[in-house]
């Protein structure tokens, strides 16, 4: 069943939670690098400042694409938290992501163009794995709807550990963390300036940042789903996963897109084949 309440809660509190997570992320990262780090609420101050700036664009269509990107990411997360069909959620996510790519293409700028191409490569790198993770959940629970998977009484993770690890692998791409922050990065070491977001500034860039917060919350929700039979375990799992991502981010150099794509596909193909074959065998037996 679809529950509008959770979708509304996500829409209202998603960016708050996402912003705080980003704040914690920066704090933990700073400690790992031996710095003190900014205050917890720094991401909010940053975005607030972006919205105060003059809205400068390369062309007017950019704004349209960014607004669509924002709307459809919120829509994606809303669907997910409302308990809708997981595949539909994934397709909505792709649609949203394409809008960001189109926004980057629209500006006819070399840096954002390369960013757009790389963003597309990232999409095709993570998408098969995410679909296979959803398929794994379906084979285990008999349903694609998030609410049914959530209500499944046994631990899903025990039957699809391979798919979970695969999902973790591509989660790094989705969270834009090193070594897979190839289309744009929160770090200052990008050779393509800011990639997809190069030509966005002021409120547009602020909106992209808020969208990213929504997306982070949605993705952690996806992680939660693997452990959904026990809320405490899931909460711990989500925290551990995010801390792990921060650790990976800070201990790895960015790789080339070739390696990112090749390795993501190899991981998806291997864990997909092995884990799903095992599930089918169990189902048949």
């Amino acid at each position, binding site marked *: 069943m679809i529950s509008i309440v959770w979708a509304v809660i996500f829409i209202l509190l998603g960016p708050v939670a996402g912003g705080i997570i980003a704040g914690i992320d920066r704090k933990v990262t700073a400690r790992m690098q031996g710095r003190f780090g900014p205050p917890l609420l720094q991401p909010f101050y940053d975005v607030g400042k972006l919205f105060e700036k003059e809205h*400068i664009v390369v062309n007017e269509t950019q704004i349209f694409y960014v607004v669509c990107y924002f709307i459809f990411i919120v829509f994606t997360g809303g669907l997910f938290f409302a308990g809708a069909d997981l595949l539909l959620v994934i397709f909505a996510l792709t649609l949203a992501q394409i809008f960001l790519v189109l926004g980057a293409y629209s*500006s006819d700028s070399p840096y954002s163009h390369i960013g757009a191409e790389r963003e597309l490569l990232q999409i095709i790198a993570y998408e098969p794995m995410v*679909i296979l993770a959803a398929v794994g959940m379906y084979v285990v629970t008999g349903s694609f709807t998030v609410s049914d998977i959530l209500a499944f009484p046994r631990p899903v993770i025990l039957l699809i550990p391979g798919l979970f690890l695969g999902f973790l692998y591509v989660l790094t791409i989705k969270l834009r963390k090193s070594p897979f922050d190839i289309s744009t990065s929160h770090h200052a070491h990008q050779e393509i300036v800011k990639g997809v977001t190069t030509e966005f500034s002021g409120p547009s860039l602020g909106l992209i940042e808020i969208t990213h917060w929504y997306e982070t919350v949605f993705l952690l929700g996806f992680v939660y789903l693997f452990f959904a039979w026990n809320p405490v375990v899931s909460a711990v799992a989500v925290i551990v996963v995010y801390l792990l991502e921060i650790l990976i981010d800070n201990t790895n150099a960015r790789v080339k897109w070739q390696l990112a794509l090749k390795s993501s596909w190899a991981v998806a193909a291997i864990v997909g084949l092995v884990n799903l074959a095992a599930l089918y065998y169990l189902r048949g037996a």
Partner: protein
Amino acid sequence: MQIVQLLVFLILFPLITAFFMFAVRKNGERKLIVSLSALAIGGVLVYLLVTAFDKGAVYFGVGSESVGMVMFAIEMAVAVFIFYLGIRYRNYLVVGLITLQSLAMIWYEAVYARGIEVQYSLFVDQFSLIMALIIGIIGSLICVYALGYMKHFHEHHVEIPDRRNWFFFVLFVFLSAMFGLVFANNIVWVYFFWEITTLCSFLLIGYTKTEEATANAFTALWMNLLGGIAFSGAILYLATLGGGIMGLDQLLASGKVIALLPAVLIGFAGLTKAAQLPFSSWLVGAMVAPTPVSALLHSSTMVKAGVYIIVRLAPIFQGTPSGYALAFIGAFTFLIASGIAISRSNAKQVLAYSTIANLGLVVACAGIGTYEAIWAAILLIIFHAISKSLLFMAVGTVEHRISSRDIENMRGLITCMPKITAMMVIGIAGMFLAPFGMLISKWVAIRAFIDAPLGFIFVIILAFGSAITVFFWAKWMGKIITVVPDKVHLEGKVDPNEWIALVSLAGLTVITCFIFPLISSMLLEPFLLANYGVSAQLSQDNITIMILMLFLLVVLPLSVLLPHHRHKHVPAYMGGRTTTPDMHFSGSLGMQRQMELSNYYLDSWFGEAKLRKIGIGLCTAILAVMFLAVALRGVVL
């Protein structure tokens, strides 16, 4: 009016129009006849839909021995014609194949035909209705588009002899044959119409009579003749060992013991016609023809005949090793053709490989053959036909303005021809984005595959294939929506006939998504229920969500109409270099350079030569397994 009269009308009326088209040489008169015929076909189709949609499968015993004789006579005339062309162009492969095929049919006609009585020669059910709607509506729109396109075509290419009356003649014969193919229950009739579509596509591909066109036309011909031989083999088998079963309904009811071998043979013919690997090259080569031909071959006719017959026979394939082999050929074709599409920058080639890929998915669904898979297959056929014809025609219209069909030359299309670009964007979105048709179909296909035994392999192939699809469509879309301020406006006045076709198809792309639940419940679900005893459907929640998404996508672009203040504009970031408005900057040593952007084609990964070789090898091997499996089964039984 009775349903049977409507069916006969739909088969014969385009044929009559065809002869008119042959006689008429003035463009004005041609326009009038084509428009009136399109309206007539459309009207009759709607009437047929209203009268027949709730009746299930209805069979008719029409025609007599004389009809059979006429068909045989035409077949022989066609054979002599092809034989003559084969000799004239020294293509002895074609000569050999047509001889073999004719001998088989002469043998059948002389020895067995008399003794075989087919009770029902024509029929219509919901699947035929859907196919007829696709052929009639999209086919007619393509003919209307061709009116404008061919005029420009001959203005641009004065070196090519203007044989437009011949062109439109073949176009309408093609439509007639397609109607015949989907309404025929007598397998010999199906075969007759099948061969006519082969001939028509051969003639249309070779229309310009250039060396390349002729060579590609012959490639299409020999590959399809190979399928034709398999088809005639199936007829001979049915006449002899099959005990004279010659109706599709009887074949489907006869059980796998008898039906599997002829079904595999006809399925093989379907693979050649649907341009599946290893027979994909003819469809890629077919793009030398004028754009309306490509649109027709790719969307509503020809390749759709191939998948139609495979989907029709799907209950026989279901659960057999041969069925799985068929499904694997389809699945690998989907994966490999999608990959090749990444490496192509020629728009028509991208479209061609995408067609091959999507048909592969249909074949994969049909090979699996469960009710859910068939549901997905038919949805794919519908949505693919609409979006693909739209895209071909949009590319054709653009090509006449920029004299190129290369995607790299379409940079900034939205600045210089915004309206056509909008049509193209709708077409591309229809091919790969939620909540448009093709994505709905892929979604349904995933669900169908999961529930089948060994289905996870297909799910994995589909997951990778559809990700690859995202890449080549999105980069194309990105290219054309790039805003390039210094481009001049090139759109000019779009020919009204082209415009009608483009707008109608763009409208259909969106509308079919809105009314898809209706199509499903009125036509698809009853068909599945009648043939499989179960029916598939999407949950109400999902339909609501998709309609909401679609609504958002329709409404959001309207936001540009809202009053808004202009923002401050700055040029794109060029690393701090001084750059002129047309993106010239001073490079090293003071050289003036222009900024150029190009998409990724990843040739070393997805190169055509490499992937095609792999695909042909792999799929030929699976074909061998398919025949081996059915032969072994014959031995065991």
